[in-house]
């Protein structure tokens, strides 16, 4: 099925309505790739080069130098080599300029920017991939022989290809109009001698689709690895440069083609020099995909911040008595290592039971009040964060809370927590005290309605009546969801909490 495509007058600049064709850069019979320079045109503002946005063989010149046409008008026709002349005639007759061609190719800039448009030279815009290694082939070698060919009648394009593949134009048979050697002729000569041509690659990335060869590539010389890899990646060996030994496509060539055709676009210069591999080897950044945990944290906390109106209450607690009690317990009882945080968990659980409006889960519509305080404790992992729950913390004693928190932390690190262990809870405690953080504000974990951020216990000067003294103080900063917890309720909770922490004997009662 032959596809017939149109080369049309492009739109440069917002105000351009028409342009004049000054010169064709290709000839009928030439192979055209997307982005190839095909003609020079001039408008009232600039002279610029028309680039093809289709690929195939240039079959018919429609507009001639000197013709002035409106934007989107037909300049020439590109099709397969086996499309008949009659079909092309029919195409030209029925051609209607498409509105899509009226898109401003120079972008949203004004006509001023059009001045800055680069005049893209045929040599630079249309680049072959790096020179293939000279194959050890007598016929090919012979192609290079001959007298100076600079006056041989050949299209600029053909000359460029010939230069690149070290072909003397005297050795090329012209099949185009006026005995002019076209690019296709040069390519045919090379292939007839046993070489092969890498497909044309463009450095326009935004709009163009790289050319993909559909030729049967089983005769292309390639290493076994390259061939298999190409098959796996869906790459045609004709689309690969040739840099392997003995004139073969090698693995690196297939990978470069893959990067271009299947992956991120790369500049021609990089392909040409092989710098692409170096660039890929030492990138300035490393993309890391988001892990499941990361994605969950990201979406849940964003949702929480956006949905829940957070308000904060801060309170300082003196923990000298608590520390003394802690030391006493730890010294006397080898089977347990109670931390300050364990005390805070206990105190929080007790305060939650006293303020049932805080000990809730809220899903946006329904509030659930829980009989017991299921306190979540934030555990930092290498890969993120998790909040396992100390269930019914109000009913556990300090030893039980301490051992449970230890066990949950280890299981969190080993990844053996069950969903039941960390989904739910009625309140959360997050402690960054071990990092020396004085105070911070945490984000509520839905469906909970509050979270408490615990800072480091540090010696501070406190006021006692009219005197000052030094005490060990820890700052607690709680965030509450104002949809379900009001200021006074939160404040009462914090007051109770402070009382338990500063009078730790109450936690043993």
């Amino acid at each position, binding site marked *: 099925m032959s596809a017939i495509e149109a080369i049309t007058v492009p739109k440069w600049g917002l105000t351009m309505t028409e342009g004049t064709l000054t010169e064709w850069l290709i000839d009928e019979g030439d192979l055209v790739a997307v982005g190839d320079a095909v003609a020079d045109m001039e408008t009232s503002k600039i002279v610029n080069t028309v680039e093809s946005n289709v690929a195939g063989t240039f079959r018919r010149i429609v507009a001639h130098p000197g013709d002035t046409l409106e934007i989107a008008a037909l300049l020439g026709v590109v099709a397969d080599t086996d499309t008949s002349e009659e079909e092309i005639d029919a195409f030209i007759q029925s051609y209607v300029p498409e509105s899509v061609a009226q898109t401003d190719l120079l972008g949203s800039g004004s006509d001023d920017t059009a001045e800055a448009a680069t005049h893209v030279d045929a040599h630079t815009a249309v680049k072959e991939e790096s020179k293939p290694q000279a194959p050890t082939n007598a016929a090919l070698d012979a192609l290079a022989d001959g007298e100076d060919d600079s006056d041989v009648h050949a299209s600029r394009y053909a000359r460029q290809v010939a230069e690149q593949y070290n072909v003397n134009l005297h050795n090329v048979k012209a099949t185009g109009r006026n005995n002019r050697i076209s690019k296709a002729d040069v390519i045919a000569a090379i292939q007839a001698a046993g070489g092969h041509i890498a497909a044309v690659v463009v450095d326009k990335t935004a709009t163009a689709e790289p050319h993909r060869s559909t030729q049967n590539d089983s005769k292309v010389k390639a290493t076994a690895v390259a061939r298999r890899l190409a098959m796996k990646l869906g790459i045609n060996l004709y689309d690969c440069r040739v840099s392997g030994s003995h004139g073969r496509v090698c693995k690196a060539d297939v990978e470069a083609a893959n990067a271009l055709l299947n992956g991120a676009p790369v500049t021609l210069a990089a392909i040409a020099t092989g710098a692409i591999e170096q660039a890929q080897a030492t990138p300035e950044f490393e993309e890391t995909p988001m892990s499941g945990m990361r994605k969950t944290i990201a979406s849940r906390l964003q949702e929480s911040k956006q949905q829940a109106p957070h308000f904060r209450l801060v309170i300082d607690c003196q923990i000298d008595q608590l520390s003394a009690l802690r030391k006493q317990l*730890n010294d006397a009882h*080898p*089977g*347990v*290592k109670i931390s300050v945080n364990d005390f805070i968990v206990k105190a929080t659980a007790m305060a939650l039971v006293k303020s049932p409006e805080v000990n809730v889960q809220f899903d946006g519509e329904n509030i659930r009040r829980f009989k017991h305080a299921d306190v979540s404790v934030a555990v930092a992992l290498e890969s993120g964060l998790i909040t396992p729950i100390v269930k019914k913390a109000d009913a556990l004693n300090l030893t039980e809370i*301490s*051992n449970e928190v*230890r*066990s949950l*932390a*280890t*299981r969190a*690190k*080993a*990844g*053996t*927590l069950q969903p039941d262990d960390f989904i739910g809870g009625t309140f959360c405690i997050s402690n960054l005290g071990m990092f020396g953080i004085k105070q911070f504000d945490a984000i509520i974990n839905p469906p909970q309605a509050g979270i408490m951020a615990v800072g480091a216990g540090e010696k501070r000067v406190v006021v006692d009546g009219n005197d000052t003294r030094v005490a060990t103080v820890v700052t607690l900063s709680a965030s509450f969801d104002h949809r379900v917890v009001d200021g006074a309720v939160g404040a009462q909770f914090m007051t109770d909490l402070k009382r338990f922490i500063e009078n730790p004997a109450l936690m043993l009662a």
Partner: protein
Amino acid sequence: MKQYDVMVVGGGPGGYVAAIRAAQLGLKTALVEKKHLGGICLNWGCIPTKALLKGAEVAHTLENLSLYGFSADNVQFDIKGLVKHSRDVSARLTSGIDYLMKKNGIDVIDGFARVVGKCELSVESGTQGSSVSETRYRADHIIIATGARPRSLPGIEPDGEQVWTYFDAMVPEKLPKSLLVIGSGAIGVEFASLYRDLGVEVTVVEVLDQMMPVEDAEVSAFATKKFKQRGIVVKTGTKVESINKSVEGVTCLLIDKNGNSEEVVVEKVLLSAGIQGNIENIGMETLGVETDRSFIKTDEWCRTNVVGLYAIGDVSGPPCLAHKASHEGVICVEKLAGVAGVHPLDKSNVPACTYSRPQVASVGMTEAQARASGRGIKVGRFNFQSNSKALAIGEAEGFVKTLFDQDSGELLGAHMIGPEVTEQIQGFGIAQALEGTEQQLMHTVFAHPTLSEAMHEAVLDACGQALHQ
């Protein structure tokens, strides 16, 4: 202070396995070893002794060359060559453990570790002479796997010269003319068998009434008979009261349970009367860790009475076997990491192997224990004399005994003595692990001709269906 999730003290088969399992579970793990990875097992125990015993096997084969049509004269033996072979094997395996540590991302810390507080370790590095540095570490979980060492008897202390422990017996400069082995557990019996095959006069002295006291009585009796046939003097129910070292050798005063005394003069004495746990200087007293004689007390999950402190392997008590240590390592770590479906170690499923000649291997209850339990039992026996492979290889001394619960068909115990039984006992271990019955064992097809068929026949015999006897 550097922080780890798990720190293991001791790099033997208990310690290094625990460390590997912890690392596999994603826990940040470090292992502290003061001397050599692989511990006693790899360096001064299981492995080098098996290498030496292979030499004994070769000596035995050389004694019987004519049976197979060979003759040889002027066969030379240099003990140093055999010792070198055993040391080479140890060195190779130690570097293998080193590789495993690296592969699993475990930090190996060279030094002597001491627990200085709950979840806190202090490690001393550097040898005497050069500067000793101390580093502290915090770990949520500390696993003590410091192993055990030979126990002395009052008045009988090892001196490395005339009174040996297994350390010395493993690297003799030259073969002694005579050797008296105190204690007939696996260690004593293996060395007795080894040295006898190398031409040494050996006497074994055991204070209990039965050589190899923990084995089934029938097996012990057979082993004793075979030892005596080989020219090993075996004195059971006898104690070494005292020893007297002199230039001529060691004079040992033996007293049996009837009060009769005897003096035996030997060149070397091997003290193999038990081992004691290495619990000194590692901070056990500081934390108030409960110990029982020389072993650390643990529950079924290898937990001590101190939070975050565990003990596995020889240091946590009998059976003092490498495979028990390894399994405890895995169970301890899986339990603390919250892995589902962990079961405590069933000590009755831990096999015991002795690599003497003949070899001894057993698992589960002895016949006496099975009968004492009051349940109805079925007993099966099969003699290697009736096993075609055993005859073909000229090693047909020994038997297999199986004990089944009459009601449930459960394999209560299996006892084997004879050729390569240490390699065969795992078959019975598998049956126990799977809680299989005698029926299932009967229906298992054993290849022919193998020594293992004796296992099958012993099972058949328990059901009164023996085919080949």
